[in-house]
Each structure stands twice: as structure tokens, then as C-alpha cells.
């Protein structure tokens, strides 16, 4: 089986091809065109610019990825149908629908967050070969738009245990970066400065840490950063570094503690980290340490698969297509696919 996946949910246009059978599969192609450099000068994503760039890059990228043969050796197409920016998603979904219908190939819509979870299958051979012994697994999905604890009982079988009640943790990093005038995207900059700061310098609140459930809240933490800094007369470089370190330590502590608590209650056999914030070194190190202490196998994606990419969408599609009743759309039904900008993985 050979699957071509298209991903355009935010500011990357990406294509990937996976082929194989059963647990023996190979990522043949993986191409990403990133718009971060373009959006950096605006300090955020500009939807119209993003959509226009997707339109410009998607066809050349397709030719580059598949050569002149294009779709002749592809069995299935897959596309990110949500969640994400509507205008960006539309480009990828429209391209995929057109290609699938014109070449008479089945098309499978894939959830972007499910893709992030499958970045672990791309990165860990052990998981790829022996995944049965690692289910049920607990996935901590963290990105600019999501903070979720998901119980994964098997391929495609998810239960939401908790979610943020307001801002995502990646958004909190971005907003703290904006408060500190550090640029976009904020996460990597805050983490870098945190390395040189004292994480115990500022005493920030730990929202929802003892809420008794698996939900999160990061809006108030961002506000606490703002108020704490307002009390300082002049904000030095050292203060900025200390704030980055203190904020990051609190955010990571909340994520790690809730993850471990859930892993015990649901007696999972592994923990997976997924999403853009999986690139955060402190989160990886701290979560790994506490998983080891609890004898829990811990998987995280390689850095190159933490950002948005189509390889993870192809991997998720590959496993979904192995299921006895796959949900790929054929012929005229292809046109019934619409963009689902708020799609949750545990909802069909």
C-alpha cells in the first residue's frame, strides 16, 4: 500500500509518501515548505498570505515529490481536514479532492492532532514493531492550539481525559514571548533564554495543578507573568531570562504532574509526547525522568517531526487504512469532504 498525504493546516505546505504492508513500512518521501520566515515579520500568521503561499507551493511540491509520474503509483490519498486555520486547510483539502477525483483514488481525511500522535511511530522503531505491548498508551498532545491528555487504547481508538479550559500551552509560550518582546514563534525563544535564567526566581501560580481532574488552564499563568513584570521598575535582560525560566518550569511541571497522575489511574503501558511543544527540551527531559522512575516506556518524536509535516499524516492514514472498515472516500463522495477547523480526534 502506498499513501500520499497532504498537510496545509497552518503555515507549512507539506507532502509525504509512505509505503509498505503491516508493521513493515517506509517513509519514502517527505517534503515541507515552511512559511515561518514569511510570517516572522508580521509577528504571527497572516491567513491570506498563508493561503496564497499554499496555493503557490502545493503543485511544484507535488511534482518535486512524485516526479512526472505523479499519482500513478499511489493507492490512497490522505489529507489533513482539521483542526487548523480554515483558509489554509481549504487549500490542501481542495487540492487533495481534485487530485483524488481526477485520478480515481480513494481519499482519507486525517485529523491533524492524530497525525501528531503518529509522529511517534515515525520516530521510534520499537513502537512501530511492537506497538501492541504499549497499548493502552497515554498521549500528551501539546501545541499552539492544543493541550490534551488522550488515552489511546489502540490504533484509532481515543478517549479524551482532559484538555485546556482556555489557552493552549504553546499559545501561553507565544504570549509570554510577546509580553517580553521576544518575537515569533515564541516557544523556542523562551526555552532558549530559560537556559540562562533561574527557574525559582519568580513564584508563579500553578493553575489547576490540584484540580483533581486532567484539565489545564494557561490563560491565568500568562496574566501572572504580565502582572509580576509590571511590578518591576525596569526589566533587565536577567529579569527576562529568569521569567522565561520560571514560566517554563511551571508550565512543564503542570503538564508532567497531570500526565503521570493519569498514567497511574488508567494503568497505561506507555506515554507518548506529541505536537509542536514536544520540541521543548525541558518537557522531554522532565517527562522522561519521571516516566523512568515509574517504569513507564516513554516515546517522543524526533525534532524534525514535532513541527507540522505530512509524514505524520501519512503514518496516521496508513494505520487507519489497515483497519477493516476504513473511512476513505471514493468517487463522488470525495466531494462530501469539508474542512473541519475544530475537529477533535475523539469525535468522528
Amino acid at each position, binding site marked *: 500500500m502506498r499513501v500520499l498525504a497532504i498537510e496545509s493546516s497552518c503555515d507549512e505546505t507539506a507532502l509525504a509518501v509512505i509505503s509498505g504492508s503491516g508493521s513493515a513500512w517506509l517513509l519514502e518521501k517527505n517534503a515541507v515548505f515552511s512559511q515561518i520566515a514569511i510570517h516572522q515579520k*508580521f509577528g504571527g500568521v497572516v491567513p491570506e498570505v498563508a493561503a496564497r503561499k499554499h496555493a503557490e507551493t502545493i503543485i511544484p511540491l507535488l511534482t518535486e515529490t512524485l516526479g512526472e509520474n505523479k499519482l500513478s503509483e499511489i493507492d490512497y490519498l490522505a489529507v489533513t481536514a482539521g483542526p487548523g*486555520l480554515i483558509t489554509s486547510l481549504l487549500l490542501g483539502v481542495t487540492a487533495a479532492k481534485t487530485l483524488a477525483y481526477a485520478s480515481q483514488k480513494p481519499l482519507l481525511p486525517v485529523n491533524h492532532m492524530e497525525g501528531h500522535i503518529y509522529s511517534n511511530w515515525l520516530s521510534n522503531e520499537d513502537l512501530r514493531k511492537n506497538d501492541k505491548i504499549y497499548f493502552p498508551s497515554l498521549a500528551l498532545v501539546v*501545541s499552539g492550539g492544543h493541550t490534551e491528555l488522550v488515552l489511546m487504547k489502540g490504533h484509532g481508538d481515543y478517549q479524551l481525559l482532559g484538555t485546556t479550559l482556555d489557552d*493552549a500551552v504553546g499559545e501561553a509560550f507565544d504570549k509570554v514571548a510577546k509580553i517580553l518582546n521576544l518575537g515569533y514563534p515564541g516557544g523556542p525563544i523562551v526555552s532558549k533564554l530559560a537556559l540562562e535564567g533561574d527557574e525559582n526566581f519568580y513564584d508563579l501560580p500553578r493553575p489547576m495543578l490540584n484540580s483533581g481532574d486532567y484539565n489545564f488552564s494557561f490563560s491565568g499563568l500568562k496574566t501572572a507573568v504580565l502582572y509580576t513584570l509590571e511590578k518591576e521598575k525596569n526589566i533587565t535582560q536577567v529579569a527576562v531570562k529568569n521569567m522565561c525560566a520560571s514560566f517554563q518550569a511551571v508550565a512543564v511541571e503542570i503538564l508532567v504532574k497531570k500526565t503521570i497522575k493519569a498514567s497511574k489511574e488508567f494503568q497505561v503501558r506507555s506515554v507518548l509526547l506529541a505536537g509542536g511543544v514536544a520540541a521543548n527540551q525541558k518537557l522531554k527531559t522532565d517527562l522522561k525522568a519521571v516516566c523512568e522512575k515509574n517504569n513507564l516506556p516513554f516515546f517522543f518524536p524526533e525534532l524534525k517531526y514535532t513541527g507540522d509535516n505530512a509524514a505524520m499524516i501519512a503514518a496516521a492514514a496508513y494505520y487507519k487504512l489497515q483497519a477493516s472498515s476504513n473511512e476513505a472516500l471514493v468517487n463522488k463522495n470525495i466531494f462530501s469532504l469539508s474542512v473541519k477547523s475544530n475537529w477533535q480526534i475523539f469525535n468522528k
Partner: protein
Amino acid sequence: MQEFISHNLADTEKIAQALLSSLAARLDSAKRGKSILALSGNLGAGKTTFVKFLAKALGLEENITSPTFVLLKAYDIDFADFKKFIHVDCYRLDAKEDLADIGLQDYVADASNLVLIEWADKINNLPQQKVLNIKIEILGETSRRFIIS
């Protein structure tokens, strides 16, 4: 223009409730035909909190999470003539954008949508006759001024 002072969360909830009921009853001419709420206030002013109270008063049981990353989230409601609550956050936009560019035109055109927009000053061509502005000013740690115009 109306002004309300909130000293605590309970006050803020009452302001959200009063705003919605006057919007629904179309009591005064200032609120007739208004279906866009343009919410402004600095980071930390309490926009998230206010939106949560609005959602509660609208009868929404779902939790309202930040639409910053995806720009907008839509929720089904049944409140007065409104059938959908559209929560938009333009925080990530830095350039002046048009409604159509961010996919908002169709939502705004439909009068059965109650559209709440945070950081609305980043959009160029909002139909001003439909807009009710809500500004939150920070007075102290927990007190806020709401200016509705």
C-alpha cells in the same frame, strides 16, 4: 455609551448577562441589529473570563477555549434569534486584514450568527452598523471598567 464597573467575577457575570438580555430584547435603539461584539482590552484584562460568562449566559455547556490558533471557533446556540456563536480572535494577525481574507465574511453576513471578535481593530472592513464595542479597562487587581458603545 454605557459604563459598568466590575469589582469581582460575580459583577462581571452580571454585566455579561445584562448585555445579552438587552441585546436579545433589543430594548434600546443602540442595540438594534447588532450581531457583532467587538471585544477589546489588554492582555490580562479579562477577555477570556468575560467570554466564558457570555457563553454561560448563552446556555452553552461546552467549554470555550481560546480560538487564537485557529482564528475562529463556532458553537451552536439557541438564544433569541441567534443560532450560532462565533468566537473570533485576531490576536495572531498583525497586518490589517479584510473579513474575506480570514474567512469571516459569510459568518458576519448571517444575522443568526452572534459573532464575538477579540482584537477586532486588526480587521479592516467590519460592517460598523452591526458592531457593538465592548472595552475592558483595568482599574486594579480585580476591578474593571466595561465601556459599551
